[in-house]
């Protein structure tokens, strides 16, 4: 893994997300009025702007929607794969994909969430092939 050195700056809204991530659980938000999911997390529902979204644990399963392998740029180490992942719940999130060789990356590949522990407070969700838990160190 190329080092991920920029830590997120959590806030009141995101605190439950990062707390759950520390325990290896991936939360997304659901609108209490419409039942629709949303990503990224906000203090309000984008489906019903006066409603406060509720946190729910996501399946952690999804599929690869698009990807780009960074060979030059930010990286001071090995190439890494930036990806859009479509979760089973229907929302798209931006993350990294690990454990798949560049030549084997294809849209539609099944993925499952895993976590990288960056420090005592932050465990960052990434995605790997299902059943391959080798990258999870949360």
């Amino acid at each position, binding site marked *: 893994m*190329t080092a*991920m*050195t*920029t*830590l*997120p*700056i*959590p*806030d009141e809204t*995101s605190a439950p997300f990062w707390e759950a991530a520390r325990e290896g659980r991936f939360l997304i938000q659901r609108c209490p009025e419409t039942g629709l999911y949303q*990503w*990224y*997390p906000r203090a309000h529902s984008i489906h019903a702007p006066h409603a406060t979204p509720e946190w729910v644990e996501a399946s952690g399963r999804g599929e690869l*929607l*698009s*990807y*780009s*392998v*960074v*060979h*030059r*740029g*930010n*990286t001071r180490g090995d190439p*890494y794969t*930036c*990806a*859009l992942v479509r979760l089973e719940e229907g*929302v*798209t*999130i*931006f*993350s*990294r994909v690990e454990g798949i060789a*560049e030549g084997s990356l294809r*849209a539609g590949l099944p993925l499952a969430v895993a976590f990288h522990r*960056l420090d005592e407070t*932050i465990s*960052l969700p*990434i995605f790997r092939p299902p059943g391959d838990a080798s990258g999870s160190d949360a």
Partner: protein
Amino acid sequence: MKHLSGKTAIVGAYESPRRDAPRVHPFALQMECILGALDDAGLALTDVDGLCAASGDWAEGGGTMDVIELAEYIGIQPTYVNSTDVGGCSYILQAGQAAAAIATGLAEVVVISYAACPRWWPLSTPSFDPFVFPAGPGQYEIPYAPTLISTYGLFARRHMDLYGTTPEQLAQVAVTFRGHAAANPQARLRKPITVDDVLASPVIASPLHRLDCCVVTDGGGALVMTSRERARDLKRRPVYLAGYGAAVARTQNSQIPDDLSTPAALSGPRAFAMAGMTPADIDVAQIYDAFTITPMLALEDLGFCGRGESGPFVAAGNLAADGGSLPTNTDGGGLSSNHPGKRGIFTLIESVRQLRGDAPGIQVPDAKVALAHGLGGTFCSAATAILAV
């Protein structure tokens, strides 16, 4: 917005010939450009009562109150200012808003100016733009270290998967614009290239190769706008703002629409409606080309081809100045001529030069209607201008 069509004109334009400006502060480069554009118009700094700038980002020299800093530096006290920063197309958006300001009497002579010096500006200078700052929405993306190019890579890869677009079709965009740059003595890169050259260049962020990416130059440019009435008395042939549209959409990668539509799908139709025109009326186009995928999505959103059809459209040679249906980026564009960071102003400047018949390189004969289109960030915003003589 129809009542605004043709009410204002660009009466002066200047592009700095510099591509390297070592240790030159961007404000000094802006002053060169502002005086150049005013000289072109036959106006003086004392005539200027409006200033538009977006100079607060990395390598642009200013901070959060950039337009005040710039006004002070150049030595004017404008009564109309606009420092709306929507990325690379800011200056096209500002041209539309300047037109409204002039038409309603808020200002009479407006300067729109830009310069940046990324080739020497310290990399360590802090930035709070949404592509680097890990707070708020960015806390869910920036820790993964996305690069600007990798986000364009996400667009390009999905376009290939959805529509069958090929690396060769992407490469053809760079090849075509390099061919145009060959005739522009100011262009950074002028040696013709082939599709094979593009595909053989190193992958920066897949599927984009080095030659799928714009050059990085220092540089700047400026424009002068005024009313239709005042424009008639000035030195150069007025270039009228016939149509204008702008829109913003998103900053986060997670919000990229499934079909890859961009805010150009909003800015383009608004500009055409204001001008009372369609894509078929455009004689020459300048379309922001940060990467080869960039103008391809714009061509679809602006209606020059259908959704997903930009690959075959560019491969068929439609963008070529010699015989294409839509001569595009006649100066060589960002891929070959210059790209200090927000090149939207150059799409306006080259459009003006095409319509006045004084382009530095390729000149499209008898061009009467030009389209200048830009985006900001990673298809985060869009602004479209239709200019006419």
